[in-house]
């Protein structure tokens, strides 16, 4: 029989092991937001704890400190992770974007230098891609990295770099050939952010916290052996990274299943006060979270069987980002006037915390359709590369 939707004994054993470890190790009190200095360090500490249990990079090969789990096992790990309400991963971009890129394109020396410190949380990585004039049109980027002896000299301006305020390293695209245009002449560099000539300035987000940053480069010197892949190969490496990001691993379905579960629980508490439109939204959100999870299992099975993921990754990105928004909108509709409260003297703190959590989540969910490639661009990709329509 094909389509076997039962876990094997080994998969169930993995689930139990993960569940047991998380029950013993997840902080009982939620960590402060990683968009604050104290919160960032608390989350860095959590990465170290995860790594000590060898749970920080479960899909990485064992030689790099991972467990070599396949994608189905990764999904199980993630399900348990979100079930336990474990802290968000401050090194998300390092673990899921830079790590796999380095494993594919890095030299043995680079892997040895970067991967263990990434895994342990000693180095937190930020993605350094966008520029003021190069957002959706990334190939318009102008920040240069000019070879000078055994160094690159960086000049220019990067922006919207998530968690770069407190991060140690950045990975990104730079123009190593100043005469080049568009996708040519770009190179992929690992940049230590505490380098003379590099100035990082936090940008306050919608929630007031400095979750992203702009980075100014003024004759900043970076060792040439931080070049990942060959000079000029940057665009194709970056596109591989974008594939990881939009593909499967940026947002595991468990995250949305957990939010959907919380939404249903919130709805049950307030069912008597809900209008039919809100009821319908809750049900639709729960179904969509299930759909996304099932789709991911199907893709994971296909990849394990030797398939690959291409432009259809754009379908995922649009779907989960719009689902996340819809779930938070529904929660705010249920909460009504309570939703705006940031703090409320005299009101039981649990109720306010929960309302704040939904509003914080809502603000963050508004970023979903924008980051990792705006959804307008994703819809273009779907139309052009999945459906075969011409470029406009």
């Amino acid at each position, binding site marked *: *029989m*094909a*389509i*076997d*939707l*039962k*876990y*094997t004994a080994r*998969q169930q054993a993995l*689930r139990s092991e993960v569940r047991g470890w998380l029950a013993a190790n997840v902080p009982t009190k939620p960590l402060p937001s990683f968009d604050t200095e104290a919160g960032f360090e608390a989350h860095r500490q959590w990465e170290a704890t995860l790594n000590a249990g060898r749970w920080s990079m479960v899909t990485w090969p064992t030689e790099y400190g991972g467990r070599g789990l396949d994608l*189905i096992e990764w999904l199980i790990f*993630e*399900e*348990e992770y979100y*079930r336990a309400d474990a802290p968000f991963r401050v090194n998300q971009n390092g673990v899921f974007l830079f790590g796999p890129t380095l494993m594919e394109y890095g030299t043995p020396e680079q892997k040895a230098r970067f991967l263990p410190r990434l895994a342990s949380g000693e180095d937190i990585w930020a993605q350094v891609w966008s520029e003021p004039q190069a957002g959706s049109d990334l190939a318009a980027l102008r920040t240069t990295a000019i070879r000078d002896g055994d160094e690159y000299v960086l000049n220019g301006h990067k922006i919207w770099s998530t968690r770069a305020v407190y991060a140690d390293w950045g990975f990104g695209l730079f123009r190593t050939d100043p005469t080049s245009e568009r996708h040519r002449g770009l190179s992929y560099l690992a940049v230590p952010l505490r380098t003379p000539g590099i100035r990082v300035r936090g940008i306050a987000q919608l929630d007031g916290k400095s979750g992203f940053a702009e980075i100014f480069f003024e004759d900043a010197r970076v060792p040439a052996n931080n070049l990942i892949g060959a000079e000029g190969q940057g665009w194709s490496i970056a596109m591989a990274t974008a594939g990881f990001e939009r593909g499967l691993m940026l947002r595991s*379905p*468990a995250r949305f*299943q*957990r939010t*959907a*579960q919380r939404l*249903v629980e919130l*709805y*049950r508490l307030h069912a008597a006060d809900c209008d039919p439109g809100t*009821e*319908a939204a*809750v*049900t639709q959100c*729960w*179904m*969509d979270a*299930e*759909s*996304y*999870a*099932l*789709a991911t*299992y*199907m893709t*994971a*099975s*296909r990849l394990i*069987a030797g398939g690959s993921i291409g432009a259809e990754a754009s*379908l995922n990105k*649009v*779907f989960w980002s719009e689902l996340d928004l819809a779930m938070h909108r529904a929660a705010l509709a249920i909460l009504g006037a309570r939703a705006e409260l940031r703090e409320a003297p005299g009101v039981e703190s649990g109720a306010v915390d929960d309302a704040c959590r939904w509003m914080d989540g809502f603000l963050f969910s508004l970023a979903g359709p924008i980051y990792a490639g705006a959804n*307008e661009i*994703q*819809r*273009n990709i*779907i*139309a*052009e590369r*999945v*459906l*075969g*329509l*011409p*470029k*406009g």
Partner: protein
Amino acid sequence: MDFTFEEEQRLAAQSLRALLDDHCTGADLRRAAEALDFESYRAACATRAGKLAELGLAGMLIPDSQGGLGLGPADFVLLAEEAGWAALPEPLVESEGVANVLLAELTRHDAAAGEVLGEVLAGSALVLCAPPGVDVVSSIGLADYLLTGAHDGELAVYRTSELAIESATSVDPLRRLGRIRQLPGRPLASLGGEAARLAWQAAEARSAVFTAAQLLGLAARMTALAVAYALERKQFGRVIAANQAVKHQLADVQIRTEFARPVVYAASAAPGGVRAAHALIAAGDAAQLAAQTAIQVHGAMGYSWEVDLQFYAKRAWALTGLQGGRTVQFRRVHTALRDGALPIGPDRLFDQVSLQGAQP
């Protein structure tokens, strides 16, 4: 855990696709739809009906202990999707996917149905079903036997020649509806009680999943038709497919379709409960959106009788109303969530309890 189809299952779907590409074209559908009477309708469909019989699908889902092929619903779901892709007029899904299994179940309880089962397995009789209380049946004129019940909780088989049937008209000219006016006093075989209730429940679950699969095929077909038209139609000196407004609408249809697909496939592995309802809703929404968008992309042509798109759209509209339509299915999911009857959360996706969920 392996959420992929086997090579053999894909090949079976491909051979059905190939057959229908040749014998179930838009022109074939039009000829059948415009047939003036039932005899000319049958004549228009005769070649295809013969080819379908040669595929050797008879008794696919009937247990091998009863002379069938003993395959499961997951073996049939891709075939149902192909039937949707082609807007197949013949009730392949309704007979092979739903009624025949029900007949086998009846035969296990009442041997008198064995003769009918024998004819089905030999490919000489067509059986359809209508749960008690449902009096309108598609393609009833083609059927030799009907499984239904005189009252709730009964499963019985009747010779269609002994039924009082009047024709009814569907928005989909290819569904050839009939309304059962009266059942004869005595069925050929019958079953009551819990066994009959469970048999009907299983049949409705299969019907939900395979209807969803047809809707998935219909959605994909209408998208393909809209894409083809958008690539051909020129305005302002270029094909309309180059316009972002057109591209994004079609991208949205693709998203809805591709996120309905895994739900339908997962439901086929264990038809029933909330997941079957979810499958029907998701595929129905995708097909509805595909129909509306494809018509819009076709412009005024989309509103004309001349374009074949209408056959796929009308099938989608007809199928989305089955089993109480979205309203009933949605309420089923909603009630299970509201009452806490459904274990939910990131670790419960494949929970057997959640798959079955609350029955109405």
